[in-house]
């Protein structure tokens, strides 16, 4: 099956922003506008992460999500500050197909994953892992790479699968926004540790970075942000390249 190519919007309402190392935000556009642009380019999916709602302890903004979903006929995953079953339900009703959760599950109550999976089905639950390298391992961070959790990434990945997560979004605090390549070791370790799909984000800077990730780690999907936001490449360019490399049909 072809690797999914996913456009990821990191949103600080009302704008899509691009953090570098999860810090130093730059505005890159409006969510609905960029969503439409990537849909037209042939993205397989769209991820929408409100990167400040958890940190500011506020609810995700509904009007932006509804507007972003309105012209999108591909899967749409939404996250940011998700804590309760009602948060899951509200986002699904706004047009999300999957809900992305991180901080609350890692820092407060991992059982929210079990409960949500039972109600909404595993396929609707995406666990976002923000990994930061520490010695030879990686630690889970939250709130946009600001807060440590003390949890080991590999152990947590296995745990969330056990609890019913349908997918993992794997981000690297060290590589994010730098466009110097993915953390391939991290991606390989996580992909090989779980049986659920893993979408790898953080670090794509060139076509070669993407093909290397697919060849070595073979994740189910790759999530791209900066590379697309700055029009360095389009999704069509990436697909054509991967077809030529024999990595996609």
């Amino acid at each position, binding site marked *: *099956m*072809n690797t*999914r190519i996913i456009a990821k919007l990191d949103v600080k309402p009302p704008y899509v922003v691009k953090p570098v190392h999860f810090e130093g935000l730059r505005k890159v556009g409006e969510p609905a506008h960029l969503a439409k642009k990537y849909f037209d380019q042939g993205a*397989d999916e769209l991820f929408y992460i409100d990167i400040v709602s958890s940190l500011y302890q506020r609810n995700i903004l509904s009007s932006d999500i*509804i507007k972003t*979903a*309105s012209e999108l*006929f*591909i*899967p*749409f995953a939404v996250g940011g500050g998700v804590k309760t*079953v009602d948060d899951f*339900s509200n986002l*699904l*009703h*706004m*047009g*999300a*197909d*999957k809900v992305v959760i991180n901080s609350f599950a890692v820092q407060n109550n991992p059982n929210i994953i079990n409960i949500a*999976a*039972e*109600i*909404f*089905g*595993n*396929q*609707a639950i995406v666990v976002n892992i923000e990994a930061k390298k520490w010695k030879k391992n990686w630690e889970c961070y939250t709130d946009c790479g600001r807060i440590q959790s003390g949890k080991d990434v590999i152990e947590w990945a296995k745990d969330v699968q056990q609890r019913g997560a*349908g*997918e993992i979004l794997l981000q690297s605090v060290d590589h994010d926004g730098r466009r110097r390549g993915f953390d391939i070791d991290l991606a390989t370790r996580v992909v090989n540790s779980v*049986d*659920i*799909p893993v979408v790898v984000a953080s670090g794509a800077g060139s076509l070669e970075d993407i093909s290397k990730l697919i060849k070595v780690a073979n994740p*189910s*999907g790759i999530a791209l942000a900066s590379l697309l936001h700055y029009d360095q490449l389009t999704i069509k360019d990436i697909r054509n390249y991967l077809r030529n490399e024999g990595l996609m049909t």
Partner: protein
Amino acid sequence: MSNIIGIVNYGVAGNIHSVKKAIEKAGGETLVINSASDFKSVDKLVIPGVGSFKSSMKELESDGFIDLIKGFHKPILGICLGMQLLAKIGYEHGRTDGLNLIDAEVKPILCDAKIPHMGFQKIQVINSNKLLKDIEKEEFYFMHSYEMINYTNILALTSYGNHSFVCSIQKDNIYGVQFHPEKSRQAGIKLLSNFIQLENN
């Protein structure tokens, strides 16, 4: 002649919004079915699907929708879990009776590849039909961990991880697709348009 597409809203888990806008994009007029009395106002029925088999059947039951769906004699389209609910029995979070409109069971996908099965994939049409007309060669978006197991009423198959499974069914007025047409770009809109154009008798 009216041709209103009713979308069954069964509580917390449906992705009503996405299905509604895709049907409208395909040129259909929609009515979200929130109560039993709404059934008489619609000419076709779509059962969307995001959620688990067990909790969805429970919702349909407490809403009083089960007999109304079973007694609906115009076209019905079940999407993803909505298709699975048409089966006799489901095995997600324990054994649950389904709508029993199709002789099938719903079980976890057993194959070598990663589960849930997620992503765009081509389908293989076994019986040509009006629902899949002109989109037989397109790819559609799948997002599921369970599959419908049946040996009759099959319209199309898909393979994943060396495993072939049913991805579209039909029995009389009842249609089902395992993939999400509302999430499958132009091909999905075309499928919904094909459904809208089916005759209502």
